[in-house]
């Protein structure tokens, strides 16, 4: 029944809204210059800022990864010393997780959630502005540590104690402060999404009529406000352990370093779902559009998302199988981890069923979405392998783990974001992206990303540990191949930038209101480009 809901959406009011009291003849009136962006409270401006910031961070994080791959191109130490190498792996992870993936999702939420639920803006526009502008501050602080004496954080993005306490560099306080600011920013972004969805839905937009992107983001936002404060607590404990003589993680003072891992992963595991659930929502918007069929199993998708979110809180110790937990606890975490495959499998089968016998076309967003389904499933299955305790003792801290989480985060989360950008950019800019450029971007990315990450499974199974600047000779050929894949993948993303910049400059075929033949939903009923103010009078949803 609800699979047909999107067909029933109808707008009775002019989506431009009534602007007789606007006081300005120009409906799209906006301030000019830099202050427009500094002071903006407009959800579309802030969404754009988030997305551009994420793109910049993608390239900064990517550059750090290229340092890693350059060093690993050959065995032995060529370019960087091991301490700097560790800083590269650490800051690469932090930048990609907190600077690229999460802000990109918040940017998409800012742009699309109000349009999808018929809201005039986000519910808390000033907080919205603040939560964005905190991010550049946080990352300036984080990246500046790389230039400090003693270097930046080098304990891995998971900053396990005592690496981050006893053995960390003097810049740890900057790292802690940067993470605090990032956390505050994410929490405010999440609150904004929750309040918007709770209070600003258009009349008739009931819970079970909400597009799946809105649903997945709502659940993600709750995960964020539940676990980002725990991360803030973790880094605070690291700070006080290092500088103020507390002993949370210091056995000499009665603390426990393993407890760091418990507290960190209590945040960390929900965090990995924070980075994938919105991508599920994006793909759930794209597949029905290009299969020209309603989404199969809408309710089961919502329930599956909620189940994944719930399970994410009770599986954290599967990251710690080798810490010497008792067998009963290991079994508990193994079974709950495997249980997650059930709702995730429901989602994958629903997407496939949506495509089944649809009249499909393969524009760039659809290509990325289909690649997402296939490659994310590979990442999910390697996750299942890691969940098997005896196998995990072999895989722990090898390149197999690196392959696993890059399949779910790059070909999962990042491909989801890229497909969403191609899908919605005609609505944002008013022009179609270049399909030829998009297809080139897709095929180059698809081939290079698999050159980059697939062989990591093999070197990992063969015993190559992660986070090392040097390795045994037998891994040399594979690592050279991986590094070439990495360089190609990085260069392929320049095609993406080219396509995006082309759209932002208005070059391309004018996009229609609906943009895509099979597109359904409120966001496809406003003109392209979306006016600066939309839905000032709420649409009514039947």
């Amino acid at each position, binding site marked *: 029944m609800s699979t047909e809901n999107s067909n029933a959406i109808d707008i009775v009011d002019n989506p431009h809204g009534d602007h007789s009291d606007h006081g300005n003849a120009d409906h799209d009136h906006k301030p000019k210059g830099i202050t427009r962006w500094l002071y903006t409270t407009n959800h579309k401006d802030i969404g754009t800022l988030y997305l551009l910031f994420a793109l910049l961070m993608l390239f900064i994080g990517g550059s750090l990864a290229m340092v890693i791959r350059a060093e690993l191109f050959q065995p032995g130490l060529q370019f960087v010393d091991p301490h700097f190498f560790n800083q590269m792996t650490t800051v690469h992870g932090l930048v990609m997780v907190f600077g690229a993936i999460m802000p990109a999702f918040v940017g998409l939420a800012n742009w699309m959630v109000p349009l999808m639920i018929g809201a005039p803006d986000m*519910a*808390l526009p000033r907080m919205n502005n603040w939560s964005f502008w905190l991010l550049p501050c946080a990352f300036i602080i984080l990246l500046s540590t790389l230039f400090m004496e003693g270097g930046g954080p080098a304990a891995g993005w998971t900053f396990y104690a005592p690496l981050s306490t006893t053995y960390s560099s003097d810049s740890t306080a900057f790292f802690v402060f940067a993470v605090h600011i990032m956390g505050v920013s994410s*929490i405010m972004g999440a*609150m904004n999404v*929750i*309040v918007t969805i*709770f*209070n600003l839905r258009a009349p008739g937009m009931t819970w079970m009529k909400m597009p799946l992107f809105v649903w997945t983001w709502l659940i993600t936002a709750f995960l964020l*406000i*539940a*676990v*980002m*404060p*725990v*991360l*803030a*607590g*973790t880094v605070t*404990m690291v700070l006080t352990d290092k500088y103020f*003589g507390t*002993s*949370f993680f*210091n*056995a*000499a*003072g*009665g603390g*426990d370093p*393993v*407890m760091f891992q*418990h*507290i960190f992963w*209590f*945040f960390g595991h929900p965090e990995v779902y924070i980075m994938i659930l919105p991508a599920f929502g994006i793909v759930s918007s794209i597949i029905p559009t290009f299969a020209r069929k309603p989404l199969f199993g809408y309710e089961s998708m919502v329930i599956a998302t909620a189940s994944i979110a719930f399970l994410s809180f009770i599986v954290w110790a599967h990251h710690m199988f080798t810490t*010497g*937990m*008792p067998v*009963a*606890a290991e079994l508990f975490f193994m079974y709950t981890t495997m249980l997650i495959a059930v709702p995730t499998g429901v989602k994958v089968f629903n997407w496939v069923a949506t495509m089944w016998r649809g009249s499909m076309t393969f524009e760039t967003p659809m290509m990325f979405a289909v690649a997402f389904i296939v490659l994310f499933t590979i990442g999910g299955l390697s996750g299942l392998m890691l969940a098997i305790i005896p196998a995990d003792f072999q895989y722990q801290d090898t390149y197999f783990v690196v392959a696993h989480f890059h399949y779910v985060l790059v070909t999962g989360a990042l491909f989801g974001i890229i497909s969403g950008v191609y899908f919605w950019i005609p609505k944002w800019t008013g022009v179609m992206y270049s399909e030829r450029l998009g297809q080139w971007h897709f095929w180059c990315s698809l081939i290079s990303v698999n050159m980059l990450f697939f062989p990591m499974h093999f070197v990992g199974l063969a015993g190559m540990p992660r986070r090392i600047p040097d390795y045994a000779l037998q891994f040399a050929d594979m690592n050279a191949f991986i590094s070439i894949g990495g360089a190609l993948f990085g260069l392929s993303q320049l095609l993406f930038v080219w396509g995006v910049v082309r759209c932002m400059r208005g070059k391309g075929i004018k996009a229609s209101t609906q943009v895509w033949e099979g597109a359904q939903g409120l966001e496809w009923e406003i003109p392209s480009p979306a006016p600066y103010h939309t839905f000032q009078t709420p649409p009514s949803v039947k």
Partner: protein
Amino acid sequence: MESHKLLVRKLVLICIAMFGFGFALVPLYDVFCRYTGINGKTENTAAPAARRVDASREISVEFLANRDPGIPWSFAPEITRIEVHPGQVMVVNFLAENLSAEATIGRAVPSVSPGEAARYFKKIECFCFVEQPLDSRQKKAMPVQFYIDPELPEQFTTITLSYRLYKSTLSNASR
């Protein structure tokens, strides 16, 4: 706007509560581990003497000692292995010597393996209950008096008691 404020207030409360929960996890893990006995942590207070001795079986108790690189002491058990009956009270000495020219305070942190046996490892007196100051070049035999609880399940035949010696953080602070 009122409904916004109310909802925001609730969400802020959730955030504050979760921030507190992060810190509450510290004692919660401790309580959980003590209750289930899964962390290899032993009670760090004196246990009452055993009521009976179970002479029908023998348990191998092994001793390990190692030290943190931060403390300039030598530290080793006098013997590495003894056979005991459950309930039988034993005393084993650990030998420490301060190799540096400065007085140092040490703190030994015990751990029992397998972790599930930790709660059956009862210490009547232990040098690990208190901090151990040693003057420069001073040697000391530090005793631990213990017994194995006769309630120990049958599957355990070997129990390892391990100490790691740290420089006391208190002495660090006063340095």
